[in-house]
């Protein structure tokens, strides 16, 4: 018997709201955050919804407090999240490094705004190098996922929770105001009950077991070196098992564009224009920015000699593409930083220039 | 009672009405049907009976600093 009203239906949803709802679907019941444009829809939505489902919303006194509350809640075993933008994320770098060092899962939503400094609230991809380099001090990386549609805002934030728990590592969802503010139809379905997480390492009081300890200080001789190599192994496993990328029009491509997130949407449009003119352009869209789809880039560039990187910044992903490109391929760049958006027509022109 | 008057820079006024409310003499009204370049109906000084005392209340409260207040010379007071 099919009752269609019970079936998941498409609904128009704002990207930021899709993230917040996605977090609730993932069983996240603890949110700690501080207002900053252009991500305020997330705390606003969650401050209304969390109390309804037994969750806790805390508006912290700052982004530093937010990330440290997240650290505390995560150590206590809860799925938890914060969200912010440039200046706020910079303030969280110490905390993110501690999360990585203490091997704690956490989800950090990063809705970028233009910078450096106070900058402005326009969309940008100018925080790519900050997030993919780990961001904070020390030898570590954050997992970084970059959605390119509202549906992915909803689903990838859930993937972030899963990967964060799987690897006991912070995971960042990197997006911007284009995806955050736009609406698209999404299929959301009813909010499931949170699944119990098995976290024997969590701090719950040591009744009936030996004490648990969560720390990032390693003072013993050689202890930290062991820990650092352990993290490297973790990242290698992440690379092997959870690298994600989308390929479009790659079957017959003679020219590759690499682009991620909102920018890949403009690129998609530009490729339609290009294909209409007979130019066989394909798209590789990294979904995980860390781990970066190194192997894929290497393999594809073995046979396709031209790669154009398109970004909404001054060229931050180029190094990652170049270093993984097959020797014979050339890498070009087209970018618009500071809120400038590459239009499909602009990109088409660049395709023609380098094809 | 001292006599005074005010000047409202209507192009700066946002029509918030605070001056209207504080003038005990009811000397200020929001200009009917008028819209300035900022898109607001500005306040207007109307003092048919010359009741303005130059008490400055309106100017004090105006958040957009649109109001200049004038007062009669006091006898013997320096005009500076």
């Amino acid at each position, binding site marked *: 018997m099919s009752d269609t009203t019970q079936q998941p239906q498409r609904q128009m949803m704002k990207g930021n709201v899709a993230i917040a709802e996605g977090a609730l679907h993932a069983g996240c019941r603890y949110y700690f955050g501080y207002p900053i444009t252009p991500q305020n829809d997330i705390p606003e939505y969650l401050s209304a919804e969390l*109390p309804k489902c037994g969750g806790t919303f805390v508006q912290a006194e700052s982004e530093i407090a937010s990330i440290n509350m997240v650290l505390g809640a995560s150590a206590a075993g809860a799925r938890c999240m914060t969200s912010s933008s440039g200046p706020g994320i910079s303030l969280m770098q110490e905390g993110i490094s501690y999360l990585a060092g203490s091997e704690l899962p956490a989800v950090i939503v990063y809705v970028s705004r233009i910078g450096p400094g106070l900058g402005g609230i326009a969309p940008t991809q100018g925080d790519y190098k900050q997030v993919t380099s780990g961001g904070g001090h020390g030898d570590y990386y954050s997992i970084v996922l970059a959605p390119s549609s509202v549906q992915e805002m909803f689903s990838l934030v859930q993937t972030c929770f899963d990967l964060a728990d799987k690897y006991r590592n912070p995971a960042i969802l990197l997006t911007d105001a284009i995806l955050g503010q736009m609406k698209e139809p999404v299929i959301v379905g009813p909010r499931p009950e949170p699944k119990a997480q098995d976290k024997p390492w969590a701090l719950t009081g040591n009744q009936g077991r030996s004490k648990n300890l969560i720390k990032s200080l390693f003072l013993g001789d050689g202890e930290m070196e062991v820990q650092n190599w352990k993290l490297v192994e973790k990242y290698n496993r992440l690379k092997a098992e959870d690298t994600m990328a989308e390929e479009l029009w790659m079957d017959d491509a003679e020219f590759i564009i690499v682009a991620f997130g909102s920018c890949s949407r403009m690129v998609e449009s530009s490729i339609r224009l290009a294909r209409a003119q007979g130019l066989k352009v394909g798209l590789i869209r990294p979904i995980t920015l860390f781990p970066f789809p190194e192997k894929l880039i290497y393999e594809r560039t073995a046979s396709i000699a031209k790669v154009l990187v398109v970004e909404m910044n001054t060229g931050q992903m180029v190094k990652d593409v170049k270093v993984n490109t097959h020797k014979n391929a050339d890498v070009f760049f087209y970018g618009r930083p500071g809120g400038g958006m590459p239009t499909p027509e602009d990109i088409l022109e660049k395709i023609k220039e380098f094809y | 009672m001292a006599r005074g008057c005010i000047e409202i820079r209507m192009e700066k006024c*946002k029509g918030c009405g605070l001056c209207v409310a504080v003038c005990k003499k009811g000397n200020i009204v929001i200009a009917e049907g008028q819209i300035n370049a900022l898109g*607001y109906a500005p306040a207007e000084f109307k003092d048919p009976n010359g009741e303005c005392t130059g008490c400055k209340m309106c100017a004090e409260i105006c958040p957009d600093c649109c109001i200049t207040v004038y007062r009669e010379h006091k006898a013997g007071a320096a005009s500076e």
Partner: protein
Amino acid sequence: MAKPAEKMDAVFQRPETLIDTNFHFCPGCNHGNVHKLVAETLDEYGVAGKTIGVAGVGCCVFLYNYLNIDVLEAPHGRACAEATGVKRVHKDKIVFTYQGDGDLAAIGMAETVHAANRGENFTVIFVNNSLYGMTGGQMAPTTLLGQKTTTSPYGRSHEGDGYPIRMAEMLATLEGPSFVARVACDTPAHIVKARQAIRKAFKMQIDNMGFSFVEILSACPTNWRLDALTSQKKLQEEMVPYFPLGIFKERSTADYL
């Protein structure tokens, strides 16, 4: 009588230091009043040309568009640290910060308390409008109990959200500050008192007495979702009772520890 007569003098006009442009503030926003009072004070003491303003991030971030003085834009919450840096370099200049309640009392708590405690010789102009104006009306540390904001949709509750912080009272317990006062923009009479407090605060600085602090209760009609008049009423009837007006600390020269 619509035009000033010959025998009349201007007894109230735009201060010189206030640039002749339009505020971007919403109708009925008291940020405008405070800008005016600060400009008047700088004119009064003739110090605008040697003044450096430090703008917090909030609706006041465009301070530099309105006051004809040198201005530094500080990161959100850190204006007191910036002002410390500026004043340590220019001991003979006048330095003030201009900050909202989110800026000063939430993220900037540590910098504010410590600058106050060090007795840094600058002035803090603190506009408390009970929420985050610029970012769309979220809850601030100063949001009243029961007040609905975009992040306290069910009204602020002391359980969970905590209490509205009275910054003036808290800072007044420290040894560092010289002058700590709270004033309000709800009536002309209170604005006159606000002017006095701001003057006093700058005078303290000019006299090298150390840290001076004026909290100014202000309305944010836009995010309170009220018109200007009703906002002033709310300010008067709800904010002033919780945040009492007055001078909480005033140092005379002799009483340093």
